[in-house]
């Protein structure tokens, strides 16, 4: 599976060219405003890029190319957990029995079997995000897109969810593009880390994460982890400083705050 996007777009992205391998967990990091989310939205087909192209190799007609897990979960409040998970299948005309079997399977995978008939407002933040993940996976996409899915959660819940994600990914072998602002998270989850520059976002550097698999939170204690974190952080730091400086400049012009 490859995709390329050469967006010389006004918004955010400039000459991004990336290849994601089948089954890979690719993490994208960068300073705020580097267009991480925009990149993901272009991949998801939510943004039409003005130039450039996205190519996703797929050999299973009938399943969508991408499915997105949104940062603010974006569940439909008027649908039960189960009906949120089956929503995409319903829209594609999948028959009821198959939809429900699929929902059961996915809810079991994210550990929400008992909550199938609950409504989103009855769930905690972490549980809502599990539903978001189950909803995306139920569609069996070529690429799973995740836009800072754990950013809104508290630290403990986030740590649990990170390990859950690793388990699910190991089970299903999905190709994942994962946007995060947390370098630690990227190193814990990713096969490679793509570092984007400050606006306009370009690929600054791509770092392979050779920390072995299966990986758990204990990887943080290894020297290799510390060294890689330091390497990427020193580069990311420059970009963050540049981004802040650029924002200040814009702020003093009264353009943005």
């Amino acid at each position, binding site marked *: 599976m490859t995709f390329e996007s050469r967006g010389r777009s006004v918004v955010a992205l400039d000459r991004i060219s990336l290849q994601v391998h089948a089954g890979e967990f690719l993490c994208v990091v960068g300073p705020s405003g580097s267009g991480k989310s925009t990149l993901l939205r272009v991949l*998801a087909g939510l943004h039409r890029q003005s130039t450039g192209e996205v190519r996703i190799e797929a050999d299973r007609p009938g399943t969508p190319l991408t499915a997105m897990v949104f940062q*603010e979960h*974006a569940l*439909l409040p008027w649908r039960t957990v189960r009906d949120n998970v089956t*929503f995409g299948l319903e*829209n*594609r005309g999948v028959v009821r029995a198959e939809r429900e079997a699929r929902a059961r399977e996915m809810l079991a995978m994210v550990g929400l079997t008992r909550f199938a008939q609950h409504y989103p407002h009855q769930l905690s933040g972490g549980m809502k995000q599990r539903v978001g993940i189950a909803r995306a996976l139920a*569609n069996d996409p070529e690429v799973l897109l995740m836009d800072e899915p754990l950013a809104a959660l508290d630290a403990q819940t986030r740590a649990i969810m990170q390990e859950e994600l690793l388990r699910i990914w190991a089970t299903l072998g999905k190709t994942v593009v994962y946007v995060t602002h947390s370098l630690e998270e990227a190193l814990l989850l990713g096969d490679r880390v793509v570092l984007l520059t400050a606006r306009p976002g370009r690929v600054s550097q791509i770092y392979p994460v050779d920390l072995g698999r299966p990986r758990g939170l204990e990887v943080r204690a290894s020297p290799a982890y510390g060294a890689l974190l330091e390497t990427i952080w020193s580069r990311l730091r420059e970009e963050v400083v540049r981004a802040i400086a650029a924002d200040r400049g814009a702020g003093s012009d009264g353009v943005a705050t």
Partner: protein
Amino acid sequence: MSAAGRWLADHCITIGSPIALVAAWEWASAAGLLRAAFFPRPSTIAVHLGDLALDGTLWGHLATTLARIGWSFSLAALLGVATGLAMGLWRRLREGLDPVFAVIYPIPSVLFLPLVSFLVPPGEIALVVTTAVTSFFLIAFTTTHGVRQIDRLVVEAARHYGAGGWRLFAAVLLPGAMPSIFTGLRLGLGFALIVVVAVEIVSASRGLGALLWLSWQVLKVEDMYATFFVIALLGALLSYGLAALRARLLPWVPEVGER
């Protein structure tokens, strides 16, 4: 403490305050502090209410008023929701209708009675249409707002997962607007009661408003108060009924202001 006991303890002020008020009124009337001609004792009013119910007078008027509210509210709800949805979905329509609504809406609805009487057959139909006007605007307003306030991220996610066209409307926009629509229906129903009573006072010989006004004109003050009480009770029942319906139909809406 038993469940009933706890409930009573929680609600003692809510239950106690109207009882205290009625008791004070009873005492003041009996002691001659209030003129019984204008403020008869609540116990006397209750007896008159019983008489009105027993001889059937009350039920006839009540049925008439209920039928009028039923027709008016159905008319207002049907047209209001349809108009509101259309205005919520199409910006051009909204921009065109907003100023018109802004001008018409604040006019006290009873004033429409003569105008409506030119447009539709006077009498029962004019009365029903007049009653529907304010409710229509309220329902249309809240429905428009309901469509507009739907979380854009939710709509975007729904599109991403393949909902478009009719499906987007039926599975996302309409349910998303439902809480606001229900608020509009509840307000609209309340206003239908207010306006129908007002119109009945002005122009009808039957209905609770007419009964109240006629009782006053012949100085049957006890009957007036009895009717008054029935109208108040009717308003409360309609409002709670719709709230209960909403809780049943929209189980996904978190309870606001739960005590």
